């Protein structure tokens, strides 16, 4: 056990830090560009320097390096610290790109990967449907081949960023006669295609973090399929795995927890800081236990993956989603208990969107509500529980109901 990263990685850290200092913020005329353009420009340079997405082969814009979880961790720590615009759209970089690398054609890789990594091309993910949330296999949106075009009809829901994305990667039923997982294809859809309609969904706390996307005879080229026709389910699996890992990230929880502690110092209870109250201290320390457990579980997972011993951390891998959801909910509940009156007011629009911002009272109220959504995103908690029961404890699968 050695919690230092070691000389090799510390050198990497140094070089990343130096690059960040030199490259950001942009100078001169470049500093006048819009936010998105600045980000693209910076990411292009970081890609060239071999700092971003270094395992992506060089012909597609990366550095062709060997996978190395530790290196990724060190780099991400430094990038986060430096505040550089290193994240393009997660859907593109963490879901589409790995999929194309694994299943895409040479043509698709050359067409999409580099522009996705720089953020020139923004993606959204079209999986969920109104009738198919946790149970993707029951999706109904369909694509029919008409000459050299797919014709798309149907509806997607819970599509983050559909209102800003250039493209969607989505699952469509192409072989309607095949049941469930069979007959689904993985297609790439330009969001500007005629017949495609995006409607932002308003969330309970007032934000619009998701969209519905409607397809009414949308036509896309036949070549916009990844993997073979009918293999879309398999093609999509690696993406799902990435999504689960992202949600298990502890960075957001640590940030919220630090803000919670600050709140407890600031707010007064019975004439003294709330943090002096024995009940508040107990609850804070209890949350701290969950948080630290989660952080060390992530460290264990990172190490195990680095050593290709993933199976030894299967229970951490499968529980991380439930644990981090539970943790975020506990943090938000405790915060609202410290400032209960805030819960009577509606959060302002800029407090109602997801993602980390300043922790104003209204922000905590939003958090109190949208931590509920985290139970839902990426597979509901009950689906996670089934997975844990089956894969960690070896319990039998649910009995199937009798065929209707």
């Amino acid at each position, binding site marked *: 056990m050695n919690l230092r990263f070691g000389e090799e990685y510390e050198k990497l850290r140094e070089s990343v830090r130096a690059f960040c200092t030199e490259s950001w913020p942009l100078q001169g005329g470049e500093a006048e560009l819009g936010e998105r353009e600045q980000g693209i420009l910076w990411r292009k340079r970081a890609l060239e320097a071999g700092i971003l997405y270094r395992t992506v082969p060089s012909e597609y814009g990366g550095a062709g390096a060997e996978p190395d979880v530790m290196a990724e961790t060190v780099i991400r720590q430094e990038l986060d610290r430096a505040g550089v615009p290193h994240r393009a759209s997660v859907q593109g970089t963490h879901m589409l790109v790995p999929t194309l690398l694994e299943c895409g054609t040479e043509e698709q890789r050359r067409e999409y990967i580099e522009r996705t990594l720089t953020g020139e091309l923004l993606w959204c993910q079209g999986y969920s449907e109104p009738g198919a949330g946790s149970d993707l296999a029951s999706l109904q949106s369909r694509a029919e081949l008409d000459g050299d075009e797919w014709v798309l009809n149907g509806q997607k829901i819970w599509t983050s960023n559909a209102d800003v994305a250039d493209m969607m990667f989505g699952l469509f039923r192409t072989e309607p006669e095949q049941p469930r997982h069979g007959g689904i294809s993985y297609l790439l859809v330009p969001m500007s295609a005629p017949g495609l309609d995006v409607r932002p969904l*308003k969330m309970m706390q007032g934000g619009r973090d998701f969209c519905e996307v409607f397809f009414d005879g949308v036509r896309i080229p036949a070549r916009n399929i990844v993997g073979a026709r009918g293999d879309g389910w398999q093609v999509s699996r690696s993406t799902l795995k990435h999504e689960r890992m992202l949600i298990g990230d502890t960075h957001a929880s640590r940030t919220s927890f630090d803000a919670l502690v600050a709140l407890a110092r600031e707010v007064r209870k019975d004439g003294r800081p709330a943090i002096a109250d024995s009940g508040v201290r107990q609850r804070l320390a209890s949350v701290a236990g969950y948080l630290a457990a989660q952080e060390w579980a992530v460290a264990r997972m990172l190490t195990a993956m680095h050593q290709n011993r993933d199976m030894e951390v299967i229970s951490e891998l499968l529980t991380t989603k439930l644990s981090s959801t539970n943790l975020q909910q506990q943090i938000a509940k405790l915060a609202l208990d410290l400032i*209960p*009156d805030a819960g009577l007011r509606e959060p302002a629009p800029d407090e109602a969107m997801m993602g980390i911002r300043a922790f104003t009272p209204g922000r905590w109220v939003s958090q109190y509500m949208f931590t509920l959504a985290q*139970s839902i995103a990426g597979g509901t908690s009950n689906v996670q529980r089934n997975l844990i029961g089956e894969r960690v404890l070896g319990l039998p699968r649910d009995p199937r109901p009798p065929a209707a």
Partner: protein
Amino acid sequence: MDFSLSEEQELLQSTVRSFVERECDPRTAHAVFDGERTAVASLWAGLVDMGLPGLSLPEAHGGSGRELLDLALVAEELGRGAVPVPFLGHALAALVLARHGSEAQQATWSPGLASGGVRATVALAENGGCWLPGEWGAELEDGRVTGRKTFVPEADGADLFVVGCRGGGLALVEGGSSVRVEEGSTLDRGRPLYSVVFEAAPAEVVEGAAAVTLIDAASTLLAADAFGAAHRLIRATAAYLQTREQFGRPLATFQGLKHQLANMVAELDPSRGLWWYAGHAFDHAPAEASRAAALAKAHITERAQQVARDCVEAHGGIGFTWECDVQIWFKRVMFDRLWLGAPDAHRERYAALEGW
């Protein structure tokens, strides 16, 4: 011993329930949440027609002389329907007047309050979580009230304010130029809250232990409202899960979800008697009224809030959207839980009353 409702009470409850089912389906509540408030006036007019604004006022002044439990039964139904009407503040103000108003005050205000010609509300909270009488700071001097009150329900357009003052007394203040109502934003858009600034506003003192009456009654009504809302949420969620299929069968057939729903029932349903008793004790067992009210508010709104959270989750993604009904009841319950102070404040009130 008879711990059940009288025929008169059952009739009152079923009348209100029918009215709500007929006039206020979830689309109505949604419309109000979306800023289309025309239904509010017509719903309130309907309640006026049923005589609800004067329910607790003496018959001699145009009311029906009913008890707190009757008001609570109405609150349960309004919570069940998430009905966006200015009932809470008005009912509390009228009750205070009925129980503690002087003959002159009653003669002046009761007929209007009963007929709905005068709309009243209560101004209690002050900044920094000061909800309870001992924490009020508004100054009452020489027949004038000065201070800033927050979270005043439906203050906009209210004709009469019952204002909590330093020392725990209550005062009647008529709306007018020395009463400034400030816009705010309210999570439960069905029951908007305002800040109200009283600038040496002419006031009449209400004598007696009126503040305790007000706190006990408010606690009971909030508990009843939350109970009605959460009770409906559980049923609506169960119904939704029967229609919604995943993995080839209705979600309601999954034992995991079924047990989650059963746990909600077990947490909420047995607490009906708690607010019934709080309502009953208010009129018939005064020595126990404050304890019963504090316990009902703390226990039921806490349970209801957890039920509301669990119902969002059970719905899946749709439960988290603005257009889903759940958010309306979720916020209704959140209001009931937090208005007049969060459960821990009421648990502490209970503990103190028990002499712990």
